[in-house]
């Protein structure tokens, strides 16, 4: 008998073990919900699966009587629009500023202390400032996501640029590269997979700030809807929304990882080999 730490599950056992917890949670929920509903058919805390699917039907596949829109999809597109713009701008800022300050000592001296301080400002504390200065429209929400995620991405990119072996940068210079060429042909391609992993890590933060901003001031959006229906204790809407947000977050993370593996195979092989 091998030691416990050396026991590896087989492929099928691995799959089984992965699915098990989800099935257990579903079953637990199902029994609990049944029990509560048997006692009080108007209980709202743990709606049954039929109630939930009715709510999904109502939100996603029936026109809203008042506005004539499909609320679920409107919410989804509004939220996705905000988070994609927010994360996209953060990534662009992170790449440009992170590379500049990582590669150029002159920029680093002037810029690094500032970004360190800025990254320590709690973004939620400046949300009122954003609402006051940018109004209650899209800009304030996107700005909150940027303020929440950009400093982290910038610092991450900067530190990865600085961790590139100096031998590589010297070698490029002996092959005749200017600062610009070192930046775009040596540093940029090596930093891109790391930028993507920094984006993946800040997705969670981005969703947090998006939902917070939507909860406070919005007319549509996934976070807005959850906080709106909370007033009526509509767990049958909140639960599918939370599951949907999780699915979207997972899909974004997954596609970023696949994109990275597709574009930078050398990076992932190298990491796997370590």
């Amino acid at each position, binding site marked *: 008998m091998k030691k416990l730490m050396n026991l590896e599950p087989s492929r099928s056992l691995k799959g089984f073990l992965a699915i098990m917890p989800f099935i257990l949670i579903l079953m637990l929920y199902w029994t609990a919900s049944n029990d509560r509903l048997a006692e009080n058919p108007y209980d709202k805390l743990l709606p049954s699966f039929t109630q939930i699917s009715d709510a999904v039907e109502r939100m996603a596949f029936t026109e809203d009587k008042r506005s004539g829109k499909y609320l679920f999809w409107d919410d989804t597109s509004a939220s996705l629009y905000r988070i994609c713009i927010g994360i996209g701008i953060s990534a662009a800022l992170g790449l440009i500023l992170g590379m500049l300050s990582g590669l150029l000592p002159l920029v680093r001296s002037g810029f690094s202390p500032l970004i360190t301080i800025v990254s320590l400002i709690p973004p939620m504390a400046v949300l009122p400032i954003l609402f006051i200065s940018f109004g209650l429209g899209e800009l304030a929400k996107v700005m909150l996501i940027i303020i929440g995620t950009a400093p982290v991405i910038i610092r991450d990119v900067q530190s990865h640029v600085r961790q590139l072996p100096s031998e590589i940068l010297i*070698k490029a210079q002996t*092959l005749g590269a200017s600062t610009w*060429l070192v930046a775009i042909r040596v540093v940029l391609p090596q930093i891109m997979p790391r930028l993507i992993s920094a984006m993946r890590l800040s997705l969670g933060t981005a969703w947090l700030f998006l939902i917070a901003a939507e909860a406070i001031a919005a007319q549509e959006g996934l976070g807005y809807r959850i906080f709106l229906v909370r007033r009526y204790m509509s767990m049958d809407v909140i639960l599918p929304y939370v599951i949907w947000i999780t699915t979207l977050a997972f899909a974004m993370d997954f596609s970023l990882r696949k994109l990275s593996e597709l574009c930078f195979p050398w990076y992932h092989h190298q990491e796997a080999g370590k």
Partner: protein
Amino acid sequence: MSLLKISNVWKSYGDVQILEQLNLEVEQGEFVSMVGASGCGKTTLLKMILGSEQVSKGKILLEDNPIPPEPNEARGIVFQKYSVFPHLTVLQNVMIADEFSASSFLGRTFGKQKRLIIEKATDFIQAVGLAHALNKYPHQLSGGMQQRLAIAQALMKSPKILLLDEPFGALDPGIRKDMHQLIRKIWKENKLTIFMVTHDIQEGFELGSRLWVFDKPRQDPQAPTAYGAQITYDLPLTNKVQQEAGHAIAEKYTRKVVNI
């Protein structure tokens, strides 16, 4: 006129004196091996020739002009590791050298120009024996193959000086022998001037046409960092007699310094 002239060069980091009063001249086509105990400053001298470190006092002249204070095309380098670009294939790694000079904005070439660069790069890759691995990435290559690639890269620019910083230090003995043959062939065919830092005194003798031994002639036991190393032996190795005479010194020296 000698190719490289080192006149009264001193190097210190703060209070720590590394090198002192170096006066040396190197002609075009020489192969200088540098040996000495670790921490004696041979890599520092190499870096000063490379331009990534600056002299504290004195001058280094390349063809009678002060050597540029930053790395450039005049001096090629092969480090012990991290000498190749991990994100490029073997062919791209060698091509990039000429693409840098051909396109100062994009650093990429297209069409006929690209075909010419591919041809030239393929020639050098063949010369170092990597023709079978053109489209592999460095992480798919063994240590010896990566060093071959680094040499091919450096050759693309036909540098006036090729610097080797313990290039074979991380390789197995068998592969080292192959690499010695390769580097000797490349040195003769391309009429290069080579400086090589090595820990392996045997390697220094086998490869070089001249051997520099670094050691501290002055020692102050109260302040071990007060005096720097000098080149205590400057041995020509161009014929058998000199080789053998050198070996005798080397053996004495090896017992004295290297194996402490």
